[in-house]
């Protein structure tokens, strides 16, 4: 038995029981939602016996009941607070409270960006594979999100900040975004997932589908910065057209358990994927970054770099699969995962994986785990820095090297604000 039957898990059961009462109030095709729920029930929640979940258990969904959240709650933040939470200078903001769009807190959306409404998206089984039943759960319960269609050749200058706020004890929030870029289009999107109240135990389950047209470029950042009791699962299913480019940055700084998945496919030759990620954990945080890149066409390039800094009893996980299909020649794929263990009880697991079925390729991966370099610390101390200052400086450099790879200044700034905050916090 690879999975827990849906009926055995209190959170799964709570969802199944709530469905009938909710479905009429949810947008879109009720039958499609019912089908998704059926798929979810059949698959059950993944357990650690599923290879893709080997290092991350969803026990938290059994310990506590998470039920579909009410569409709105009281105590909404102010517009100024929203901008502070987002931290993306000059962005267009779209704000979602517990999965429902809040027009009063949002900016006017530019042409080409639409709210996810009933008719616009039929939740399909996109991206659902082994161990992906949370995506089916999302398809059954998602309420809002954005649908973004960028016309051929349109290059949207202003970054789009999607702010997802969750609150209320035991609230499960399912959101889904669809981003479609026409040929030669360009867009920058940042998802910020945060808590309305720091102590709230919420469960966010966010899915973003992106289709990048020929020669188009999408920058997509995800910032998981919820409160210490929150659970977060996000999934990006991305398809890259001919010569298209996908630049992704997944940052995990919050939550009790965070898992950010990227599932990238090249739909045509000549595309580029650059996947970056950072997970900064302390306390008993568990942070999982799982990527899957499928090179199904020749001449595509992937660059992946994920860095972890784990303090306290934090547990960091990186899983990265690069798959090169037969005949996907001239593939150039490089993947690297670096983990720093900053305390005696921190834990790092890594599973970088190459699956190569074509011969004319250049593929590599590397993974390291260790503490900060003792020689480097000594060098800084010999220049007069205290051990603490030396460590902090090295850590800052460690993270900045990653952020520096982003070309989009506003997004880099939003990420840097979060990592600086993490670095500046007192060590517990």
């Amino acid at each position: 038995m690879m999975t827990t039957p849906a009926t055995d898990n209190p959170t799964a059961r709570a969802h199944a029981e709530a469905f009938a009462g909710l479905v009429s109030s949810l947008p879109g095709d009720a039958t499609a939602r019912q089908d998704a729920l059926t798929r979810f029930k059949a698959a059950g929640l993944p357990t650690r016996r599923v290879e893709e979940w080997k290092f991350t258990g969803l026990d938290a969904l059994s310990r506590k009941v998470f039920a579909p959240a009410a569409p709105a709650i009281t105590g909404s933040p102010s517009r100024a607070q929203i901008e502070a939470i987002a931290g993306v200078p000059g962005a267009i903001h779209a704000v979602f409270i517990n999965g429902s769009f809040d027009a009063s807190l949002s900016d006017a959306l530019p042409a080409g960006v639409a709210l996810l409404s009933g008719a616009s998206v039929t939740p399909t089984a996109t991206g659902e594979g082994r161990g992906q039943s949370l995506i089916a759960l999302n398809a059954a319960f998602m309420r809002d999100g954005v649908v973004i269609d960028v016309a051929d050749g349109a290059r949207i200058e202003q970054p789009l900040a999607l702010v997802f706020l969750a609150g209320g004890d035991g609230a499960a929030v399912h959101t889904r975004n669809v981003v479609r870029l026409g040929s030669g289009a360009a867009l920058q999107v940042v998802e910020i997932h945060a808590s309305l109240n720091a102590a709230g135990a919420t469960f966010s389950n966010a899915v973003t589908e992106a289709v990048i047209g020929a020669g188009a470029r999408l920058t997509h950042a995800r910032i998981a910065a919820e409160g210490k009791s929150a659970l977060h699962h996000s999934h990006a299913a991305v398809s890259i057209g001919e010569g298209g480019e996908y630049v992704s940055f997944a940052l995990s700084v919050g939550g009790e358990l965070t898992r950010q998945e990227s599932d990238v496919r090249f739909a045509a030759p000549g595309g580029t994927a650059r996947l970056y990620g950072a997970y900064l954990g302390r306390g008993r945080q568990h942070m999982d970054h799982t990527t899957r890149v499928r090179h199904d066409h020749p001449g595509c390039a992937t660059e992946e770099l994920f860095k972890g800094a784990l303090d306290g009893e934090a547990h960091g996980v990186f899983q990265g699969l690069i798959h090169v299909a037969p005949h996907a020649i001239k593939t150039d794929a490089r993947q690297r995962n670096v983990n720093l263990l900053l305390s005696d009880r921190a834990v790092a697991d890594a599973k970088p994986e190459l699956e190569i079925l074509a011969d004319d390729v250049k593929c590599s991966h590397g993974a390291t785990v260790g503490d900060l370099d003792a020689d480097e610390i000594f060098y800084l101390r010999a220049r007069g820095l205290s051990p603490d200052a030396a460590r902090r400086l090295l850590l800052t450099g460690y993270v900045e090297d990653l952020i520096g790879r982003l070309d989009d200044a506003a997004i880099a700034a939003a990420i840097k604000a979060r990592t600086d905050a993490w670095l500046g916090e007192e060590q517990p």
Partner: protein
Amino acid sequence: MSTPDSMDAVRAVTEGEYKYGFVTDMDEDRAPKGLNTDIVRFISARKNEPEWLLDWRLKAYQRWLGMADRDPKWARISHPPIDFQDLYYYSAPKSKADAPKSLDEVDPELLATYDKLGIPLREREVLAGVAVDAVFDSISVATTYKAKLGELGIIFCSMSEAVREHPDLVKKYLGSVVPAADNFYACLNSAVFSDGSFVYIPKGVRCPMELSTYFRINAAQTGQFERTLIVADAGSYVSYLEGCTAPMRDENQLHAAVVELVALEDAEIKYSTVQNWYPGDKDGKGGIYNFVTKRGACRGARAKISWTQVETGSAITWKYPSVLLEAEGSIGEFYSVAVTNNLQQADTGTKMFHLAPNTRSTIISKGISAGRSQNTYRGLVRVAPKAANARNYTQCDSLLIGDACGGHTTPYIEVRNRSARVEHEATASKISDDQLFYCRARGLGTEDAVSLIVNGFCKEVMQKLPMEFAVEAQKLLGVSLEGSVG
């Protein structure tokens, strides 16, 4: 460093042991197909085993029954389900009446391969299973060496003999590294193991020659469910060679061996394998399923266990020679070359368990895939909370030849100690057209060029092999890849 002379001598020793009754009291018969407690009792009885070993086997059998349908499915290999009731679990050495009478009756393709590998004529007969009385010229030399090993207190004999002559040692260590119910195939082996080697090196003794099972394995046909146990007592050293470069035929399609190594304080065990079982034909018909459990335990401080393997044979290879680094400062090494061609499948690698402070491990894996084969490195490096200052370095390189094969790397890295440093690097590439042209522009034919480039790719591993083994293994790489570049 051993010399070819000592190799011959060791072969002669082991052959001599066969002559002197290595498989003495086995009947010329075969148990019926299928597996049940009667068969387990039959095997144990035929080998005149003591009660405790029969009990051990029966317990393993019961555990195995509980694992039915739990044969491992996680590896990147595929094969039709194995009907375990359709196999023979005990067969005495094949009657000479069925064997080919001379090399004239042996598959010419096999003979051509022996020729390419430069296998001496006499050895070819033995390898091809020709019914010859394996009388060797150097029995006196053999006796001298056997005497010399005896003087040093070294025990090198078959597992059956060890059970009879050294029951305390066997009882103490058998199953202590690979428990009877460790995994599906190891459990099956524990119930029905046929024979294998037993080695004990006493305290402070450096075994003066490479120990080899080369000939005995062939002569006694212990192959199918081989069980090997090597114990190196404190401060001792032994280098053990398993297998041979010549393709070996065997009628048993399933091989499920278990090898256990125990290294005590300051002891070192170097275990080298060249595996070239029949890989099946170009269309993937036939070929051995080689499902092996090999594990060593460094039980004493500063102990060292080093696995070196060159895997070119078998239709399917499933093996992960591992090291339990249980004691402070112990060292584990894994050096591997795995070549797959045609429709072969290999899922092989290692597991390094860092359980004590200051333990170190090195993993160098070179996978070469050609034809329509699939070649996977699968490895685990685990650093336990107690393993302060543990160090691991892993390098996995895949070389792909042709566009219909697969080369895969699946490492698992699990670190639970801050002061550990674990580094993993992996690459995949092909033999570049530039390299091939450069070699050819210097006058080398395509196959020689491929062989040269592949040997260069594998050099770090090949140089870990004992010298005379390395020379044979180098040729083997070339022969295994013949026809892979058009």
